[in-house]
């Protein structure tokens, strides 16, 4: 494993995953089994593979390392994009949550209070911690899946070419 290449690949993949996770229209692709975030992991592994002139089989360990690195980069970049969107457009996610609640058949009264509390927490900056926590758990997981899946096809391609 080449750490420098892994970090470079992780950063490129992280940019893709973060864009797919945070940019409002692009993130609709995640409705299809989190495909956008998985794409980040896949892009990172392809980038890593392409950085060698003599290419060979990729270990599961390499794919796992690249997937997790990509997810970690993606989590922080995604938070940055979320913050920029917040500065320009405000809490559009709260509006989205209101829409979901309105569509629910049965909404307990406590939920109204919870939304109010959430708004208060948003003002206090708590939500950024929550978003980062969520990103740090979800993005490495799905980037890892994306990297592992693309690894199968890269290795299969390699077998055929040998």
């Amino acid at each position, binding site marked *: 494993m080449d750490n420098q290449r892994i970090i470079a690949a992780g950063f490129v993949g992280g940019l893709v995953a973060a864009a797919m996770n945070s940019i409002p229209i692009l993130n609709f692709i995640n*409705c299809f089994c*989190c495909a956008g975030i998985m794409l980040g992991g896949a892009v990172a592994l392809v980038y890593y593979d392409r950085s060698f002139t003599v290419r060979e089989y990729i270990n599961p360990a390499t794919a796992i390392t690249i997937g997790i690195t990509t997810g970690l980069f993606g989590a922080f970049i995604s938070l940055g994009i979320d913050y920029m969107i917040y500065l320009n457009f405000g809490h559009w996610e709260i509006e989205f949550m209101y829409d979901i609640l309105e569509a629910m058949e049965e909404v307990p009264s406590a939920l109204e209070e919870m939304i109010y509390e*959430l708004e208060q927490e948003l003002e206090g900056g708590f939500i950024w911690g929550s978003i980062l926590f969520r990103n740090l758990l979800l993005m490495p997981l799905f980037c890892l899946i994306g990297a592992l899946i693309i690894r*199968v096809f890269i290795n299969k391609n390699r077998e055929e070419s040998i």
Partner: protein
Amino acid sequence: MKSRIFLSFHKKVTLITFIGLSLWIAGIVITPILANREEIFFQKIASFMHFFYQPVCHQIANRSFLIDGFTMTVCVRCFAFYFGGLFITIFYLFKDKMQMWSISTYILLALPALFDFLIEKFRLYSNITELRFLTGLLFGAVLFHLLLVSLSTKKVKPVLHHSKTPKTQ
């Protein structure tokens, strides 16, 4: 004397995937049950779970399964993805060998979900729950089969990597 249970590498990998996937699905199913409880504490947990799963699904209520009048944290299609994955991991827990399927098999199983997703986006038809579930199930099986194959194959050829930029002497 201690008795040991020996598991092959692919079974260990499958078992770990099965446990992880089961926990993930448990989170999806348990949320509406918690939301239905009267205690504020459980409702807060349910609310956090919806927030947690939000990046992986649109969570539109009329496209999700309901338990006690409350929606799951993911839609029908996403739930089917994970459920399909669970099926395939259970299947491979009882199989000794893991092999990659042909590319055409993967495409054949994955395309219905992709078409269903795209056709719906172009609004040619909408909201056929059974179709979403069925196509999602097949796609999930493909996805998790690929994941298991990737994790189970350790084949490595000891060839040195060469950088694109050769070192100058």
